[in-house]
Protein backbone atom coordinates (compact mmCIF):
# COMPACT_ATOMS: atom_id res chain seq x y z
CA UNK A 1 0.00 0.00 0.00
CA UNK A 2 1.37 3.36 -0.96
CA UNK A 3 1.59 6.45 1.19
CA UNK A 4 -0.44 8.25 -1.46
CA UNK A 5 -3.42 5.98 -0.94
CA UNK A 6 -3.22 6.41 2.83
CA UNK A 7 -2.95 10.16 2.58
CA UNK A 8 -5.45 10.81 -0.18
CA UNK A 9 -5.86 14.37 -1.36
CA UNK A 10 -9.22 14.53 0.36
CA UNK A 11 -7.65 13.77 3.73
CA UNK A 12 -4.96 16.38 3.35
CA UNK A 13 -7.63 18.90 2.30
CA UNK A 14 -9.71 18.23 5.41
CA UNK A 15 -6.52 18.39 7.50
CA UNK A 16 -5.59 21.78 6.14
CA UNK A 17 -9.11 23.12 6.24
CA UNK A 18 -11.04 21.17 8.83
CA UNK A 19 -14.82 21.61 8.89
CA UNK A 20 -16.72 22.57 12.06
CA UNK A 21 -13.46 23.09 13.91
CA UNK A 22 -14.54 25.93 16.11
CA UNK A 23 -16.40 25.36 19.33
CA UNK A 24 -19.95 26.70 19.12
CA UNK A 25 -22.38 27.70 21.83
CA UNK A 26 -25.02 26.91 22.87
CA UNK A 27 -24.69 23.17 22.95
CA UNK A 28 -26.34 20.24 24.74
CA UNK A 29 -23.28 18.15 25.53
CA UNK A 30 -19.52 18.64 25.57
CA UNK A 31 -17.07 15.75 25.76
CA UNK A 32 -13.31 15.56 25.88
CA UNK A 33 -11.43 12.54 24.58
CA UNK A 34 -7.74 11.83 24.26
CA UNK A 35 -5.45 9.16 22.97
CA UNK A 36 -3.10 8.38 25.85
CA UNK A 37 -0.57 6.67 23.64
CA UNK A 38 0.16 9.83 21.63
CA UNK A 39 -1.40 12.72 23.51
CA UNK A 40 -3.82 13.77 20.76
CA UNK A 41 -7.06 15.21 22.01
CA UNK A 42 -10.46 16.44 20.91
CA UNK A 43 -13.18 18.48 22.59
CA UNK A 44 -16.53 18.00 20.91
CA UNK A 45 -19.83 19.81 21.36
CA UNK A 46 -23.18 18.55 20.21
CA UNK A 47 -26.59 20.11 20.05
CA UNK A 48 -29.75 18.27 19.08
CA UNK A 49 -32.58 19.31 16.87
CA UNK A 50 -35.47 17.18 18.09
CA UNK A 51 -34.31 13.65 17.36
CA UNK A 52 -31.69 14.82 14.90
CA UNK A 53 -28.12 15.91 15.22
CA UNK A 54 -28.23 19.67 15.20
CA UNK A 55 -24.73 21.03 15.34
CA UNK A 56 -21.39 19.33 15.86
CA UNK A 57 -18.39 21.49 16.61
CA UNK A 58 -14.96 20.61 17.92
CA UNK A 59 -11.44 21.69 18.70
CA UNK A 60 -8.32 19.69 19.30
CA UNK A 61 -4.83 18.77 18.31
CA UNK A 62 -3.81 15.75 16.37
CA UNK A 63 -2.39 14.22 13.25
CA UNK A 64 -3.83 14.57 9.77
CA UNK A 65 -5.76 11.34 10.12
CA UNK A 66 -7.47 12.31 13.36
CA UNK A 67 -8.18 15.85 12.19
CA UNK A 68 -9.49 14.83 8.78
CA UNK A 69 -11.58 12.03 10.23
CA UNK A 70 -13.19 14.33 12.79
CA UNK A 71 -13.84 16.91 10.09
CA UNK A 72 -15.44 14.35 7.77
CA UNK A 73 -17.47 12.88 10.61
CA UNK A 74 -18.85 16.29 11.53
CA UNK A 75 -20.03 16.82 7.97
CA UNK A 76 -21.57 13.38 7.78
CA UNK A 77 -23.59 13.25 10.97
CA UNK A 78 -24.96 16.77 10.92
CA UNK A 79 -28.68 16.66 10.17
CA UNK A 80 -28.93 12.88 10.45
CA UNK A 81 -31.29 11.32 12.98
CA UNK A 82 -29.66 10.02 16.09
CA UNK A 83 -30.03 6.41 15.00
CA UNK A 84 -28.79 7.09 11.47
CA UNK A 85 -25.73 8.82 12.90
CA UNK A 86 -24.96 6.01 15.31
CA UNK A 87 -25.41 3.46 12.52
CA UNK A 88 -22.89 5.43 10.46
CA UNK A 89 -20.48 5.35 13.36
CA UNK A 90 -20.92 1.57 13.58
CA UNK A 91 -20.19 1.15 9.87
CA UNK A 92 -17.13 3.36 10.07
CA UNK A 93 -15.84 1.45 13.09
CA UNK A 94 -16.32 -1.78 11.16
CA UNK A 95 -14.36 -0.37 8.24
CA UNK A 96 -11.53 0.63 10.56
CA UNK A 97 -11.43 -2.82 12.13
CA UNK A 98 -11.45 -4.58 8.77
CA UNK A 99 -7.63 -4.68 8.61
CA UNK A 100 -7.97 -3.30 5.11
CA UNK A 101 -10.04 -6.19 3.79
CA UNK A 102 -12.77 -3.99 2.36
CA UNK A 103 -12.92 -0.47 1.17
CA UNK A 104 -16.25 0.91 2.38
CA UNK A 105 -19.43 1.91 0.59
CA UNK A 106 -19.05 5.40 -0.83
CA UNK A 107 -22.84 5.76 -1.00
CA UNK A 108 -23.02 5.45 2.76
CA UNK A 109 -19.71 6.75 4.06
CA UNK A 110 -19.08 9.42 1.41
CA UNK A 111 -15.75 11.20 2.07
CA UNK A 112 -15.02 8.81 4.93
CA UNK A 113 -14.14 6.02 2.49
CA UNK A 114 -10.97 7.98 1.85
CA UNK A 115 -9.91 6.78 5.32
CA UNK A 116 -10.21 3.10 4.41
CA UNK A 117 -6.43 2.86 3.95
CA UNK A 118 -5.98 3.58 7.67
CA UNK A 119 -7.36 0.14 8.51
CA UNK A 120 -4.11 -1.36 7.24
CA UNK A 121 -2.16 0.49 9.98
CA UNK A 122 -3.39 -0.70 13.39
CA UNK A 123 -1.45 2.04 15.18
CA UNK A 124 -3.37 4.69 13.23
CA UNK A 125 -6.86 3.27 13.65
CA UNK A 126 -7.11 5.00 17.02
CA UNK A 127 -6.31 8.29 15.28
CA UNK A 128 -9.16 7.86 12.81
CA UNK A 129 -11.55 6.88 15.58
CA UNK A 130 -10.75 9.65 18.08
CA UNK A 131 -13.41 12.09 16.82
CA UNK A 132 -15.95 9.37 16.10
CA UNK A 133 -15.66 7.95 19.60
CA UNK A 134 -16.09 11.42 21.05
CA UNK A 135 -19.19 11.87 18.90
CA UNK A 136 -20.62 8.51 19.92
CA UNK A 137 -20.05 9.29 23.57
CA UNK A 138 -21.71 12.70 23.21
CA UNK A 139 -24.65 11.29 21.25
CA UNK A 140 -25.32 8.54 23.77
CA UNK A 141 -25.15 10.99 26.64
CA UNK A 142 -27.42 13.43 24.82
CA UNK A 143 -29.84 10.59 24.06
CA UNK A 144 -30.01 9.44 27.64
CA UNK A 145 -30.38 12.86 29.23
Amino acid sequence: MSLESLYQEIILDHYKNPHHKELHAPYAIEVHHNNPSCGDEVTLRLSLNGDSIGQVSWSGVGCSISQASTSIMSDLVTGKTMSEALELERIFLELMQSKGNFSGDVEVLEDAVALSGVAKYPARVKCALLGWMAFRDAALRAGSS
Partner: protein
Amino acid sequence: MAGFDSASLRGDFPILDRVVRNGNRLVYLDNGATSQKPRSVVDAEREFYFHHNAAVHRGAHLLAEEATDAFEGARTKVASHVNAKSEEIIFTKSATEALNMVAYGFLNATLDKSGVGSPFHIDKSKNIVVSELEHHANLLPWQQLAARTGAQLRWFPVDPEGRLDLTNIESIIDAQTAVVALTHQSNVTGAITDVPLISNRARQVGAIFVLDACQSVPHMKVDVQALNIDFLAYSGHKALGPTGVGVLWGRYELLEQMPPMLTGGSMIESATITSATFASPPKRFEAGVPNMAQAVGLGAAIDYLNNVGMGAIAEHESELTSRALAGLGAISGLTIIGPTNNHARGGVLSFTVEGIHPHDLGQVLDDKGIAVRTGHHCAWPLMQALKVNATTRASFYLYNTEDEVDQLVAAVIDAKRFFKV
Protein backbone atom coordinates in the same frame (compact mmCIF):
# COMPACT_ATOMS: atom_id res chain seq x y z
CA MET B 1 -3.23 -45.12 28.83
CA ALA B 2 -3.64 -41.39 28.35
CA GLY B 3 -4.31 -40.10 24.85
CA PHE B 4 -0.62 -39.56 24.08
CA ASP B 5 2.69 -41.27 24.43
CA SER B 6 4.86 -39.36 26.83
CA ALA B 7 7.98 -41.09 25.58
CA SER B 8 7.42 -39.76 22.07
CA LEU B 9 7.00 -36.14 23.07
CA ARG B 10 10.20 -36.16 25.14
CA GLY B 11 12.05 -35.37 21.94
CA ASP B 12 10.52 -31.89 22.08
CA PHE B 13 12.39 -31.20 25.33
CA PRO B 14 16.14 -31.14 24.66
CA ILE B 15 17.07 -31.02 28.35
CA LEU B 16 15.57 -34.47 28.93
CA ASP B 17 18.53 -35.95 27.05
CA ARG B 18 20.95 -34.44 29.51
CA VAL B 19 23.42 -36.69 31.15
CA VAL B 20 23.83 -35.64 34.77
CA ARG B 21 25.77 -37.22 37.63
CA ASN B 22 27.67 -40.45 37.08
CA GLY B 23 26.62 -40.72 33.45
CA ASN B 24 22.95 -41.02 34.35
CA ARG B 25 20.32 -39.59 32.08
CA LEU B 26 18.23 -36.90 33.79
CA VAL B 27 15.01 -38.04 35.44
CA TYR B 28 13.32 -34.72 36.10
CA LEU B 29 10.73 -35.00 38.86
CA ASP B 30 10.90 -31.43 40.14
CA ASN B 31 8.06 -30.06 38.01
CA GLY B 32 6.34 -28.52 41.00
CA ALA B 33 9.25 -26.08 41.19
CA THR B 34 9.52 -25.41 37.47
CA SER B 35 8.81 -27.25 34.24
CA GLN B 36 11.10 -27.90 31.32
CA LYS B 37 10.55 -26.12 27.99
CA PRO B 38 9.74 -27.57 24.61
CA ARG B 39 11.66 -26.33 21.59
CA SER B 40 8.58 -24.50 20.29
CA VAL B 41 8.52 -22.17 23.30
CA VAL B 42 12.16 -21.18 23.07
CA ASP B 43 11.80 -20.85 19.29
CA ALA B 44 8.82 -18.54 19.70
CA GLU B 45 10.91 -16.20 21.83
CA ARG B 46 13.76 -16.36 19.34
CA GLU B 47 11.39 -15.62 16.47
CA PHE B 48 10.04 -12.65 18.38
CA TYR B 49 13.52 -11.25 19.08
CA PHE B 50 14.95 -11.79 15.61
CA HIS B 51 11.94 -10.74 13.55
CA HIS B 52 9.48 -8.57 15.45
CA ASN B 53 11.14 -7.11 18.54
CA ALA B 54 9.94 -3.59 19.40
CA ALA B 55 8.15 -1.89 22.28
CA VAL B 56 4.46 -2.77 22.10
CA HIS B 57 1.63 -0.21 22.04
CA ARG B 58 4.05 2.62 21.46
CA GLY B 59 5.97 2.83 18.23
CA ALA B 60 4.53 4.11 14.99
CA HIS B 61 6.37 1.56 12.87
CA LEU B 62 5.92 -1.88 11.40
CA LEU B 63 7.91 -3.78 14.05
CA ALA B 64 5.92 -2.13 16.83
CA GLU B 65 2.75 -3.26 15.08
CA GLU B 66 3.99 -6.82 14.70
CA ALA B 67 5.23 -6.95 18.29
CA THR B 68 1.86 -5.69 19.52
CA ASP B 69 0.06 -8.35 17.47
CA ALA B 70 2.28 -11.07 18.89
CA PHE B 71 1.86 -9.86 22.46
CA GLU B 72 -1.89 -9.38 22.25
CA GLY B 73 -2.21 -12.69 20.43
CA ALA B 74 -0.58 -14.36 23.42
CA ARG B 75 -3.07 -12.64 25.70
CA THR B 76 -5.94 -14.12 23.69
CA LYS B 77 -4.47 -17.62 23.98
CA VAL B 78 -3.96 -17.27 27.72
CA ALA B 79 -7.51 -16.00 28.10
CA SER B 80 -9.24 -18.76 26.20
CA HIS B 81 -7.15 -21.40 27.97
CA VAL B 82 -8.94 -20.59 31.26
CA ASN B 83 -12.21 -19.53 29.60
CA ALA B 84 -11.79 -15.82 30.24
CA LYS B 85 -11.92 -12.64 28.19
CA SER B 86 -8.70 -11.19 26.78
CA GLU B 87 -9.06 -7.89 28.56
CA GLU B 88 -9.20 -9.75 31.87
CA ILE B 89 -5.68 -11.15 31.47
CA ILE B 90 -2.74 -9.29 33.01
CA PHE B 91 0.80 -10.37 32.29
CA THR B 92 2.92 -10.26 35.44
CA LYS B 93 6.42 -11.55 36.08
CA SER B 94 5.19 -14.46 38.18
CA ALA B 95 2.34 -15.83 40.24
CA THR B 96 4.03 -14.21 43.21
CA GLU B 97 3.69 -10.79 41.60
CA ALA B 98 0.11 -11.55 40.55
CA LEU B 99 -0.93 -12.44 44.11
CA ASN B 100 0.86 -9.42 45.56
CA MET B 101 -0.89 -7.25 42.97
CA VAL B 102 -4.29 -8.21 44.33
CA ALA B 103 -3.16 -7.72 47.93
CA TYR B 104 -1.82 -4.27 47.01
CA GLY B 105 -5.10 -3.58 45.21
CA PHE B 106 -6.71 -3.87 48.66
CA LEU B 107 -3.99 -1.90 50.42
CA ASN B 108 -4.02 0.94 47.93
CA ALA B 109 -7.81 1.15 47.78
CA THR B 110 -7.71 1.35 51.56
CA LEU B 111 -5.05 4.07 51.67
CA ASP B 112 -6.52 6.16 48.86
CA LYS B 113 -9.51 8.32 49.51
CA SER B 114 -10.99 7.20 46.20
CA GLY B 115 -11.14 3.66 47.59
CA VAL B 116 -14.00 4.21 50.03
CA GLY B 117 -16.99 2.16 48.97
CA SER B 118 -14.90 -0.05 46.69
CA PRO B 119 -14.90 -3.81 47.24
CA PHE B 120 -11.15 -3.49 47.81
CA HIS B 121 -11.48 -1.15 50.76
CA ILE B 122 -10.90 -2.93 54.07
CA ASP B 123 -10.30 -2.06 57.68
CA LYS B 124 -10.14 -3.69 61.07
CA SER B 125 -13.79 -4.72 60.98
CA LYS B 126 -12.98 -7.01 58.04
CA ASN B 127 -11.20 -10.33 57.80
CA ILE B 128 -9.03 -12.15 55.30
CA VAL B 129 -9.24 -15.92 54.91
CA VAL B 130 -6.32 -18.14 53.84
CA SER B 131 -5.33 -21.68 54.81
CA GLU B 132 -2.55 -23.54 56.54
CA LEU B 133 -1.48 -25.20 53.31
CA GLU B 134 -0.75 -22.06 51.35
CA HIS B 135 2.53 -21.51 49.57
CA HIS B 136 4.28 -18.47 51.08
CA ALA B 137 3.33 -16.58 47.90
CA ASN B 138 -0.34 -16.85 48.83
CA LEU B 139 0.17 -16.27 52.53
CA LEU B 140 2.71 -13.53 53.14
CA PRO B 141 1.01 -10.88 50.97
CA TRP B 142 -2.16 -11.41 53.01
CA GLN B 143 -0.26 -11.35 56.31
CA GLN B 144 1.22 -8.03 55.26
CA LEU B 145 -2.16 -6.67 54.20
CA ALA B 146 -3.71 -7.71 57.49
CA ALA B 147 -0.88 -6.12 59.48
CA ARG B 148 -1.12 -2.87 57.52
CA THR B 149 -4.88 -2.46 57.57
CA GLY B 150 -5.77 -4.02 60.91
CA ALA B 151 -7.96 -6.61 59.19
CA GLN B 152 -8.04 -10.01 60.88
CA LEU B 153 -6.20 -12.95 59.30
CA ARG B 154 -8.09 -16.25 59.48
CA TRP B 155 -7.29 -19.64 58.09
CA PHE B 156 -8.65 -23.05 57.34
CA PRO B 157 -6.68 -25.70 59.19
CA VAL B 158 -5.63 -28.93 57.46
CA ASP B 159 -6.52 -32.50 58.33
CA PRO B 160 -3.80 -35.14 58.80
CA GLU B 161 -3.86 -35.92 55.06
CA GLY B 162 -3.05 -32.29 54.31
CA ARG B 163 -6.52 -31.50 52.99
CA LEU B 164 -8.41 -28.36 53.98
CA ASP B 165 -10.63 -28.96 56.98
CA LEU B 166 -13.82 -27.17 55.98
CA THR B 167 -15.82 -28.09 59.07
CA ASN B 168 -16.13 -24.50 60.24
CA ILE B 169 -16.50 -22.89 56.82
CA GLU B 170 -19.63 -20.97 57.89
CA SER B 171 -17.89 -19.27 60.77
CA ILE B 172 -14.52 -18.83 59.08
CA ILE B 173 -16.01 -17.14 56.01
CA ASP B 174 -18.54 -14.72 57.43
CA ALA B 175 -20.24 -11.47 56.53
CA GLN B 176 -17.07 -9.55 57.43
CA THR B 177 -14.84 -11.53 55.08
CA ALA B 178 -13.35 -9.28 52.41
CA VAL B 179 -11.26 -11.85 50.58
CA VAL B 180 -10.69 -15.60 50.53
CA ALA B 181 -7.33 -16.65 49.05
CA LEU B 182 -6.70 -20.35 48.57
CA THR B 183 -4.58 -22.74 46.59
CA HIS B 184 -6.19 -24.91 43.94
CA GLN B 185 -3.73 -27.73 44.38
CA SER B 186 -1.21 -27.99 47.19
CA ASN B 187 2.38 -27.90 45.99
CA VAL B 188 3.33 -30.18 48.89
CA THR B 189 0.62 -32.81 49.19
CA GLY B 190 -1.04 -32.64 45.78
CA ALA B 191 -4.44 -32.29 47.45
CA ILE B 192 -6.98 -30.54 45.23
CA THR B 193 -9.26 -28.00 46.88
CA ASP B 194 -13.01 -28.19 46.35
CA VAL B 195 -13.10 -24.68 44.94
CA PRO B 196 -16.78 -24.30 43.96
CA LEU B 197 -17.89 -25.31 47.45
CA ILE B 198 -15.80 -22.55 49.01
CA SER B 199 -16.29 -19.93 46.31
CA ASN B 200 -20.06 -20.33 46.66
CA ARG B 201 -19.75 -19.52 50.32
CA ALA B 202 -17.56 -16.52 49.46
CA ARG B 203 -20.18 -15.38 46.95
CA GLN B 204 -22.90 -15.65 49.61
CA VAL B 205 -21.13 -13.24 51.91
CA GLY B 206 -19.86 -10.97 49.15
CA ALA B 207 -16.19 -11.83 49.60
CA ILE B 208 -13.69 -11.77 46.73
CA PHE B 209 -12.26 -15.20 45.92
CA VAL B 210 -8.60 -15.44 44.84
CA LEU B 211 -7.28 -18.75 43.52
CA ASP B 212 -3.60 -19.66 43.48
CA ALA B 213 -3.63 -21.92 40.42
CA CYS B 214 0.13 -22.44 40.13
CA GLN B 215 -0.19 -26.20 40.45
CA SER B 216 -3.46 -26.61 38.56
CA VAL B 217 -3.45 -24.56 35.35
CA PRO B 218 -0.36 -26.37 34.03
CA HIS B 219 -1.82 -29.79 34.77
CA MET B 220 -5.56 -29.85 34.19
CA LYS B 221 -8.38 -27.99 32.48
CA VAL B 222 -9.23 -24.93 34.59
CA ASP B 223 -12.33 -22.86 33.85
CA VAL B 224 -12.64 -19.64 35.82
CA GLN B 225 -16.37 -19.43 35.13
CA ALA B 226 -17.12 -22.96 36.31
CA LEU B 227 -15.03 -22.41 39.43
CA ASN B 228 -17.04 -19.28 40.20
CA ILE B 229 -14.00 -17.27 41.30
CA ASP B 230 -12.84 -13.67 41.01
CA PHE B 231 -9.06 -13.82 40.59
CA LEU B 232 -6.67 -16.50 39.47
CA ALA B 233 -2.87 -16.49 39.40
CA TYR B 234 -0.29 -18.81 37.93
CA SER B 235 3.29 -18.83 36.69
CA GLY B 236 4.28 -19.48 33.10
CA HIS B 237 7.50 -21.26 34.01
CA LYS B 238 5.59 -24.11 35.63
CA ALA B 239 3.44 -24.54 32.50
CA LEU B 240 6.15 -25.17 29.87
CA GLY B 241 6.50 -21.40 29.46
CA PRO B 242 9.50 -19.12 29.90
CA THR B 243 10.68 -17.81 33.23
CA GLY B 244 9.75 -14.20 33.96
CA VAL B 245 6.07 -14.38 33.07
CA GLY B 246 3.00 -14.96 35.19
CA VAL B 247 -0.69 -14.43 34.74
CA LEU B 248 -3.31 -12.66 36.78
CA TRP B 249 -6.86 -13.13 35.67
CA GLY B 250 -9.59 -11.02 37.28
CA ARG B 251 -13.26 -10.42 36.61
CA TYR B 252 -13.46 -7.25 34.58
CA GLU B 253 -15.91 -5.47 36.94
CA LEU B 254 -13.41 -6.00 39.75
CA LEU B 255 -10.34 -5.10 37.74
CA GLU B 256 -12.04 -1.85 36.83
CA GLN B 257 -12.31 -0.97 40.52
CA MET B 258 -8.84 -2.14 41.55
CA PRO B 259 -6.01 0.39 41.94
CA PRO B 260 -2.71 -0.55 40.33
CA MET B 261 0.29 -1.77 42.29
CA LEU B 262 2.96 -0.53 39.86
CA THR B 263 2.71 2.87 38.20
CA GLY B 264 4.69 4.23 35.25
CA GLY B 265 4.56 4.31 31.49
CA SER B 266 1.78 2.84 29.32
CA MET B 267 -0.70 2.55 32.17
CA ILE B 268 -1.96 6.11 32.29
CA GLU B 269 -4.82 7.96 30.72
CA SER B 270 -3.29 11.36 31.45
CA ALA B 271 -0.47 12.71 33.57
CA THR B 272 0.74 16.04 34.88
CA ILE B 273 3.62 16.74 37.20
CA THR B 274 1.38 16.42 40.24
CA SER B 275 -1.20 13.80 39.35
CA ALA B 276 -2.27 11.09 36.93
CA THR B 277 -5.31 9.12 35.91
CA PHE B 278 -5.07 5.51 34.92
CA ALA B 279 -6.00 3.54 31.82
CA SER B 280 -8.58 0.76 31.79
CA PRO B 281 -7.57 -2.84 32.52
CA PRO B 282 -5.50 -4.70 31.49
CA LYS B 283 -3.19 -1.76 30.64
CA ARG B 284 -3.60 -0.22 34.07
CA PHE B 285 -1.80 -3.22 35.53
CA GLU B 286 1.02 -3.48 33.00
CA ALA B 287 3.22 -0.47 33.71
CA GLY B 288 6.36 -0.20 31.63
CA VAL B 289 7.59 -2.09 28.61
CA PRO B 290 6.17 -5.53 29.33
CA ASN B 291 7.79 -8.97 29.26
CA MET B 292 6.86 -9.26 25.59
CA ALA B 293 8.99 -12.20 24.49
CA GLN B 294 8.00 -14.14 27.60
CA ALA B 295 4.30 -13.56 26.99
CA VAL B 296 4.77 -14.77 23.43
CA GLY B 297 6.64 -17.81 24.75
CA LEU B 298 3.81 -18.54 27.16
CA GLY B 299 1.39 -18.37 24.24
CA ALA B 300 3.45 -21.06 22.50
CA ALA B 301 3.46 -23.14 25.69
CA ILE B 302 -0.32 -22.99 25.82
CA ASP B 303 -0.50 -24.07 22.20
CA TYR B 304 1.70 -27.01 23.09
CA LEU B 305 -0.42 -27.96 26.10
CA ASN B 306 -3.62 -27.69 24.08
CA ASN B 307 -2.21 -29.83 21.31
CA VAL B 308 -1.52 -32.58 23.79
CA GLY B 309 -4.80 -31.86 25.56
CA MET B 310 -5.29 -30.79 29.18
CA GLY B 311 -7.54 -33.77 29.84
CA ALA B 312 -4.97 -36.21 28.50
CA ILE B 313 -2.23 -34.55 30.56
CA ALA B 314 -4.27 -34.87 33.75
CA GLU B 315 -4.99 -38.50 32.97
CA HIS B 316 -1.35 -39.26 32.28
CA GLU B 317 -0.20 -37.65 35.51
CA SER B 318 -2.89 -39.50 37.40
CA GLU B 319 -1.57 -42.79 36.07
CA LEU B 320 1.95 -41.89 37.14
CA THR B 321 0.67 -40.86 40.55
CA SER B 322 -1.16 -44.13 41.07
CA ARG B 323 1.97 -46.02 40.16
CA ALA B 324 4.09 -43.90 42.50
CA LEU B 325 1.61 -44.18 45.38
CA ALA B 326 1.65 -47.95 45.01
CA GLY B 327 5.40 -48.25 44.56
CA LEU B 328 6.45 -45.85 47.29
CA GLY B 329 3.61 -46.90 49.59
CA ALA B 330 5.03 -50.43 49.66
CA ILE B 331 8.38 -49.28 51.05
CA SER B 332 8.61 -49.83 54.79
CA GLY B 333 9.40 -46.77 56.84
CA LEU B 334 8.13 -44.51 54.06
CA THR B 335 5.24 -42.19 54.88
CA ILE B 336 3.27 -40.36 52.20
CA ILE B 337 2.68 -36.78 53.40
CA GLY B 338 -0.69 -36.03 51.87
CA PRO B 339 -3.55 -38.07 50.42
CA THR B 340 -2.55 -41.70 50.00
CA ASN B 341 -5.30 -42.53 47.57
CA ASN B 342 -5.47 -41.07 44.12
CA HIS B 343 -8.75 -39.20 44.55
CA ALA B 344 -8.90 -35.38 44.20
CA ARG B 345 -5.15 -35.08 44.05
CA GLY B 346 -2.66 -34.17 41.40
CA GLY B 347 0.76 -35.44 40.49
CA VAL B 348 2.68 -33.95 43.40
CA LEU B 349 3.82 -36.44 45.97
CA SER B 350 5.64 -35.75 49.23
CA PHE B 351 7.04 -38.36 51.55
CA THR B 352 9.44 -39.00 54.37
CA VAL B 353 11.59 -42.07 55.02
CA GLU B 354 12.35 -42.98 58.59
CA GLY B 355 16.00 -42.53 59.42
CA ILE B 356 16.90 -40.63 56.28
CA HIS B 357 16.69 -36.87 56.25
CA PRO B 358 15.12 -35.55 53.01
CA HIS B 359 18.35 -33.77 52.12
CA ASP B 360 20.26 -36.99 52.29
CA LEU B 361 17.62 -38.83 50.34
CA GLY B 362 17.62 -36.09 47.71
CA GLN B 363 21.38 -36.43 47.47
CA VAL B 364 21.18 -40.15 46.77
CA LEU B 365 18.49 -39.60 44.15
CA ASP B 366 20.56 -36.83 42.56
CA ASP B 367 23.50 -39.20 42.45
CA LYS B 368 21.34 -41.44 40.27
CA GLY B 369 20.23 -38.56 38.06
CA ILE B 370 16.81 -38.19 39.67
CA ALA B 371 15.91 -34.57 40.38
CA VAL B 372 13.43 -34.05 43.22
CA ARG B 373 12.86 -31.28 45.70
CA THR B 374 13.54 -31.54 49.41
CA GLY B 375 12.73 -29.13 52.21
CA HIS B 376 9.65 -27.20 53.26
CA HIS B 377 8.58 -26.27 49.71
CA CYS B 378 7.82 -22.67 50.70
CA ALA B 379 4.95 -23.92 52.82
CA TRP B 380 6.40 -23.75 56.26
CA PRO B 381 3.09 -23.38 58.10
CA LEU B 382 1.90 -26.62 56.49
CA MET B 383 5.03 -28.38 57.69
CA GLN B 384 4.33 -27.07 61.18
CA ALA B 385 0.72 -28.25 60.99
CA LEU B 386 1.70 -31.71 59.73
CA LYS B 387 4.57 -31.84 62.23
CA VAL B 388 7.25 -32.67 59.71
CA ASN B 389 10.47 -30.77 59.35
CA ALA B 390 10.90 -31.36 55.65
CA THR B 391 9.79 -33.77 52.95
CA THR B 392 11.06 -35.20 49.71
CA ARG B 393 8.78 -34.27 46.83
CA ALA B 394 8.41 -35.83 43.42
CA SER B 395 6.18 -33.97 40.97
CA PHE B 396 5.23 -35.22 37.54
CA TYR B 397 4.46 -33.70 34.18
CA LEU B 398 3.44 -34.78 30.72
CA TYR B 399 6.93 -35.92 29.70
CA ASN B 400 7.48 -38.21 32.66
CA THR B 401 7.17 -41.95 32.11
CA GLU B 402 6.23 -45.00 34.12
CA ASP B 403 9.82 -46.11 33.85
CA GLU B 404 10.89 -42.92 35.61
CA VAL B 405 8.45 -43.61 38.43
CA ASP B 406 9.94 -47.06 38.77
CA GLN B 407 13.44 -45.59 38.87
CA LEU B 408 12.33 -43.31 41.70
CA VAL B 409 10.93 -46.18 43.70
CA ALA B 410 14.04 -48.30 43.16
CA ALA B 411 16.29 -45.40 44.12
CA VAL B 412 14.48 -44.86 47.41
CA ILE B 413 14.96 -48.53 48.21
CA ASP B 414 18.65 -48.20 47.35
CA ALA B 415 18.94 -45.17 49.61
CA LYS B 416 17.57 -47.15 52.52
CA ARG B 417 20.22 -49.75 51.84
CA PHE B 418 22.94 -47.10 51.59
CA PHE B 419 22.01 -45.46 54.89
CA LYS B 420 21.38 -48.88 56.45
CA VAL B 421 17.85 -48.09 57.63
